[in-house]
């Protein structure tokens, strides 16, 4: 890479729940921020700039909340930046924060993302308040049906992803959904929402926040010398494509392919399936796992579902996907992308706790938004040269 090395030295998140009635917006973000600062052994005084991401302001009814949250985030007198790139926003927030450091403008930057969905009605806001909204599940169902039709995947693949991610969530103390008795039978018996997506193949609606401390090479090395392994950012990219036109393929979006290519090229990844140890992919509905495995080059086209079927993507498999439980287990929308990036970082830091993937050295975090149009991804490593 031509840019100076940048590292993640602190990660924090809230306990995600349907309703965090115990905290204000400010209280919610501070819960994540102070966990991240503690993790980095820093205080707000060490932070030079704050980048805030969240999905539409209409979700909570607070316009440009970075204004009100300046105090809670300790940003007074500092730059406070606000990103919004639909569902991918959490990932883009991390990338923009890293850009502040890469450009040499600041040494240490805090990336924060949140959603407090219980304050409003996300389904209503997704339809721009116009009613009759299909919601995200309705929007993605045709893409899922197209994937199944093209790949010939059997219907139990979606059920398996739903079970795997909920089992993983049982090992993640912050996860929202804890379904102890999750099983294929239970998923199969749950109500059909948007053919072929069933209730238990769908993400929850969560209140939650995530924060990540990003710093320069000296800061990363200092953390490492202190016995607190950083996650080095090996490559990142945000790509977007237009909403709809003949020739666009929302099942295998060009923006996703290019986003993956950007990241792998920067990171020196030539064989993603073998060089990447674990992936946190944005999977709000179960079938998105095989779809993204393929678009991000972790499986050949049409083969992603087989990695689900043979257990490759399970914790303990050859390429665990969403060891944290993923978006299927916690979904504060604006924060969900940053959670993917943060969980990927924790994996290569060896800091993922009970859902740690043994020996993970390289991981990717990925987020997407709108109708499979906005893609943000980063690759992180336990060292700057993990393939040497």
């Amino acid at each position: 890479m031509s840019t100076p090395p940048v590292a993640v030295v602190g990660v924090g998140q809230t306990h995600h729940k349907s309703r965090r009635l115990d905290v204000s917006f400010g209280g919610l973000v501070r819960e994540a921020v102070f966990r991240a600062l503690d993790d980095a052994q820093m205080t707000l005084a060490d932070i030079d700039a704050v980048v805030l991401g969240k999905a539409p302001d209409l979700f909570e009814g607070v316009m440009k909340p970075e204004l009100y949250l300046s105090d809670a985030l300790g940003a007074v007198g500092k730059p406070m930046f606000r990103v919004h790139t639909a569902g991918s926003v959490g990932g883009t927030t991390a990338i923009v924060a890293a850009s502040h450091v890469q450009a040499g403008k600041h040494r240490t930057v805090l990336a924060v993302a949140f959603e407090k969905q219980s304050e409003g009605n996300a389904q209503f806001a997704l339809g721009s308040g116009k009613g009759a909204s299909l919601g995200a599940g309705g929007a993605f169902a045709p893409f899922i049906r197209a994937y199944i039709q093209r790949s010939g995947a059997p219907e139990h693949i979606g059920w398996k992803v739903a079970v795997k991610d909920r089992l993983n969530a049982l090992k993640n103390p912050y996860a929202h959904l804890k379904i102890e008795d999750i099983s294929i039978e239970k998923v199969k018996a749950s109500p059909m929402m948007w053919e072929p997506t069933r209730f238990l193949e769908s993400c929850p609606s969560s209140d939650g926040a995530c924060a990540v401390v990003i710093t320069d090479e000296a800061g990363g090395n200092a953390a490492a010398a202190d016995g607190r392994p950083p996650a080095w950012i090996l490559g990142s990219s945000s790509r977007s494509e237009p909403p709809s036109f003949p020739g666009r393929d929302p099942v295998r979006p060009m923006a996703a392919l290019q986003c993956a290519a950007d990241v792998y090229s920067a990171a020196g990844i030539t064989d993603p399936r073998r060089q990447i140890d674990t992936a946190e992919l944005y999977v709000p509905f179960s079938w998105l796992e095989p779809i993204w495995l393929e678009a991000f080059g972790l499986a050949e086209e049409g083969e992603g579902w087989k990695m689900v079927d043979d257990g490759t993507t399970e914790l303990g498999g050859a390429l665990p996907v969403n060891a944290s439980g993923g978006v299927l287990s916690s979904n504060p929308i604006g924060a969900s992308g940053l959670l993917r990036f943060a969980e990927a970082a924790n994996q290569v830091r060896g800091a993922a706790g009970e859902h740690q993937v043994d020996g993970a050295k390289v991981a990717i975090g990925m987020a997407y938004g709108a109708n499979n149009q906005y893609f943000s991804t980063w690759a992180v490593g336990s060292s700057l040269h993990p393939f040497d």
Partner: protein
Amino acid sequence: MSAPSTDIAVIGWAQSQMVRHTDKSETQLLMSAITDAITPLGLQRADIDFTCLGSCDYITGQAFSFVSNLDAIGAWPPKRDSHVEMDGAWALYEAWLRLQEGDIEIAVVTGSGRSSTGDPALIYPMEMDPYFLAPLGADPLTFAALQARAVIASGIADERRMAEVAVRARGTGNVESLLAEEFIRQPLRRHDVPPITDGAAAMVLATGDRARQLVERPAYITGFDHRTECHNPSFRALDDSPSTRIAAEAAGLAAAPVEVAELQAAFTHEELLLRSVLGLGDDVTVNASGGALKENPIMASGLCRVGYAADHIFGGGNRALAHSTSGPCLQQNLVCILEGRS
């Protein structure tokens, strides 16, 4: 921290017609603005390596409103792209950071908004602290009037000087007759407040060598910073703007004199306050464009300030300042310094 190692310059910009109301969609406004910005440079949409759009869902009245604007940037093949829920001046800031990574050469940033479709008095209270301030329903005029009182009390402004700012900005009216008008929020009269404007702006940035290939006199960004303050206006000294001062310091304003300043002052007293905080003397031409008092396309207003400052450099000027702001009573402020080179 350190100065940018890569030269980055504004090489062109364009804006839509600025009108009280347009029936065109935001995407249509951006479509024309982007075409008008890149065409004179001999560029096509395919030449753009990075785009960053600035807009606000609450102004547009629709969640994810920026998604359809991808059609205006022509994001096919897909673009490296981002969006800020801030004025286009902050989109410019993100692109400026991104270009410094050195792997790409050309970026387009935009700001866009159609304020005419909503009622500012209903919309703006929603940007306030949702627990303690939003429920009061205080609109932007009310907060601006509170700040105007503080600025007048401190001697930085008076009603006459505010009227003089309005006359100069709009190029119409006379001070005596304006001062005879009724207050709409004391001490603010109609002439002290901004118009409602629909509009969009697009700006093209390029890294050093590419910029010099494309235009004779690029407007180099030599300093760029933005800062925020405490949100609640009642906890702030409203006759000051410390975030503007810090941003100007960090952007290196003091290093050399500027000839022109474009300030995003939507209210007359804001211009007087910002001039004072920035230490701009009478030799500095302020808001020759008319500023936000003449045309105030929310979410594009700050980017237009940078555009007019760049015009000064394109026309042979040496150093110019552009300012943008967000939030109640100038909560958040951005300063961008542009320079020409012989």
